[in-house]
């Protein structure tokens, strides 16, 4: 452990920051804990500015001591590529902070706010005075707690665009009425203590579902997973106002990270799995199909079936599955499609590399085929040597650490915060099918006689809808998600959360357009976003981005034609926008030039391009059917 520290110091001292970060990650993998966390926080400050890290700032409003969880939270974030700073509110100052427009909650530029209030503090009469309460008293305690949450959420959303994560209230380890508490029939009558607390949590969930950017952290479920008997520490509570044991601090930090990753867009889009001894037990090339182990209900095969179930769950969450395996392709594919115990079949995988090449090359090919960056990949392999190889030769890929015992594989996947999502769109649920259609399109492209023929044969229909507060619930979350996730065709790479999109689409001078594309192979779903701001006689393009799924199909020209036509219809004379280069958005670098814009200003961060709408036109390609929702486009 100390050797690793010496190496880290040496790498930082000699300016090899990427190497230092890899060692920092290893230190955290090998000894996660409060002491290591303190060291990692120091390392983070020294690595800042030298390696790409997503910045994030979180304020925690709380009713109990959480200070020792903060270094663990920051260290875990650093290992996941996030440069996190954290502020804690004073004890029990959350109500004042929500109410006071001058509180740091509103004046500081925060990424997210966590509200961690315990049942004991928010609803004391339900926590330890329940036996004395009448039915009416219980009802009023429940209503009071929900009303408080509602008030805070409303105040917060009116004044802040940060995400808000709210802990649920935890259940008592011993209900006041013992087993009788579980016999309660009527929640509305306030019959049970746990039922009453559950009712508050239900209210909290409804509130979060109805408010963009507000999320529920099931703190009670976290305590239950650990075990209530192993959670609390009465001595710590009475001495330092910390209700839980030291060993549970890491679990709280890990739970916070599951929210921080999707909030900051640090998420994985593809999970690439090995086959032998990972997806099934045994080696198919040696043991044959009859000899490999995978089965839901058999001792030896169950761990592998459980991993497959975890991967299948990820696929339903919109994460693509892929295979990188050293095997004979025939053996492996036959095992996948004909072994009776398999849950996943070849149709579940969006890309497959089975052969004898090295895994880092396979991962690069998979990323290229699926049109995602290497840093969107998570690699799952039972073999520590393969994992180390990939860490060294493809450091952008996240390599999942697996325990030696296969029965822990599924858990490792389920605990990885890169797979967490805070909202699911229809696009997420149908993604694998969409990629199958994508493969069909690629075959058509290869057989078409000219690129124009290919475009015509696609029969694309582009639908552009202006996002309004009224249609926000249907399209807003996906629009925000696209601004968070899109890296390649993205002119300015400005990230917006749901609350910010809702705010923008309600402003009179701003327009948020959502772009959907259909073609003969099916519906690509909502795949593009354009955000504009009109000022004087100019329409300024704040954001213009498209999912990689529709790059290279002239969809961007169709979108721009609609934006230009809309500007002309409002009597505007000029269209302009920045191209801000990043490490990843080269595919959109030529966009303005190709459409007749000229450079109006050059700065260190990028170029401002401009088009005179009086003299230039942007026609929609003849092979695209364009439908702009006029009703939505016209401003009131």
């Amino acid at each position, binding site marked *: 452990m100390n050797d690793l520290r010496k190496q880290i110091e040496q790498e930082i001292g000699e300016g090899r920051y990427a190497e230092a970060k890899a060692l920092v990650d290893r230190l955290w993998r090998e000894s996660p*804990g*409060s002491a290591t966390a*303190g060291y990692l926080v120091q390392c983070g400050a020294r690595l800042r500015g030298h390696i790409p890290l997503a910045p994030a700032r979180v304020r925690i409003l709380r009713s109990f001591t959480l200070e020792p969880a903060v*270094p663990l939270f920051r260290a875990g974030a650093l290992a996941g590529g996030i440069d996190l700073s954290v502020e804690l509110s004073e004890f029990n100052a959350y109500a004042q902070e929500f109410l006071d427009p001058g509180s740091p909650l509103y004046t500081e530029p925060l990424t997210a706010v966590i509200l961690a209030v315990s049942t004991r503090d928010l609803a004391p009469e339900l926590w330890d005075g329940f036996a004395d309460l009448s039915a009416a008293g219980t009802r009023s305690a429940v209503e009071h707690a929900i009303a408080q949450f509602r008030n805070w959420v409303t105040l917060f959303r009116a004044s802040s665009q940060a995400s808000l994560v709210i802990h649920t209230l935890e259940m008592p380890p011993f209900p006041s009425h013992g087993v009788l508490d579980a016999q309660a029939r009527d929640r509305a009558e306030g019959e049970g203590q746990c039922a009453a607390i559950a009712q508050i949590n239900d209210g909290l969930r409804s509130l979060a579902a109805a408010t963009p950017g507000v999320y529920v952290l099931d703190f009670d479920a976290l305590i239950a997973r650990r075990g209530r008997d192993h959670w609390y520490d009465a001595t710590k509570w*009475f001495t330092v106002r*910390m209700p839980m*044991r*030291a060993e549970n601090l890491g679990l709280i930090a890990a739970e916070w990270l599951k929210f921080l990753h999707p909030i900051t867009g640090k998420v994985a889009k593809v999970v690439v799995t090995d086959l032998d001894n990972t997806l099934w037990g045994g080696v198919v090339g040696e043991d044959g199909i009859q000899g490999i182990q995978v089965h839901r209900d058999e001792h030896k095969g169950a761990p592998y079936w459980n991993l497959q179930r975890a991967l299948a769950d990820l696929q339903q969450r919109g994460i693509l599955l892929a295979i990188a395996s050293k095997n004979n392709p025939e053996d492996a594919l036959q095992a996948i499609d004909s072994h009776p115990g398999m849950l996943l079949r070849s149709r579940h995988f969006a890309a497959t590399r089975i052969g004898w090449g090295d895994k880092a090359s396979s991962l690069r090919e998979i990323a290229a085929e699926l049109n995602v960056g290497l840093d969107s990949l998570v690699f799952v392999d039972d073999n520590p040597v393969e994992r180390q190889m990939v860490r060294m030769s493809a450091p952008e890929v996240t390599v999942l650490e697996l325990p030696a015992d296969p029965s822990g594989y599924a858990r490792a996947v389920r605990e990885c915060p890169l797979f967490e999502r805070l909202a699911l769109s229809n696009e997420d649920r149908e993604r694998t099918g969409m990629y199958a259609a994508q493969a069909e399109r690629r075959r058509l492209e290869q057989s078409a006689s000219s690129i124009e023929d290919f475009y015509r044969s696609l029969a694309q229909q582009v639908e552009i809808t202006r996002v309004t507060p009224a249609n926000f619930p249907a399209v807003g979350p996906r629009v925000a998600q696209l601004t968070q996730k899109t890296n390649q065709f993205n002119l300015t790479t400005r990230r917006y959360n749901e609350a910010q999109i809702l705010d923008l689409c309600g402003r009179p001078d701003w327009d948020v357009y959502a772009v959907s594309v259909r073609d003969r192979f099916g519906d690509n779903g909502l795949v593009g976003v354009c955000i504009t701001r009109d000022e004087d006689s100019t329409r300024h393009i704040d954001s213009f981005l498209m999912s990689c799924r529709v790059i290279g199909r002239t969809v961007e020209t169709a979108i721009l034609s609609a934006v230009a036509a809309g500007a002309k219809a409002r009597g505007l004379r000029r269209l302009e926008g920045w191209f801000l280069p990043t490490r990843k958005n080269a595919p959109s670098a030529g966009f303005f030039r190709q459409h007749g814009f000229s450079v109006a200003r050059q700065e260190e961060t990028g170029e401002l391009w401009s088009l005179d709408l009086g003299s230039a036109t942007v026609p929609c390609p003849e092979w695209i059917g364009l439908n702009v929702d006029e009703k939505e486009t016209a401003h009131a």
Partner: protein
Amino acid sequence: MNPEILDRVRQMMADIFGVPVDQLTPASSPDNVETWDSIQHLNLVMALEQEFGVQFSPEEIEQLLSVELVASLVEEKKKEIGVA
């Protein structure tokens, strides 16, 4: 004093207080380590409890006021639970 425990304790304290490990002697205390304040003291107690699987009473927490005292109390506690 068990030198192995002393070394581990010093390294942990260096990490938590953000000071080089060679600056910490057995006599280092909140009086001469500037960053050893009440919050970092709590962080230290949490780290010790996680690392060594022990639990300190409120009275013990108040006594952990030098590197030497920390190391010897950890050693004593580990003997109590039979892992030393």
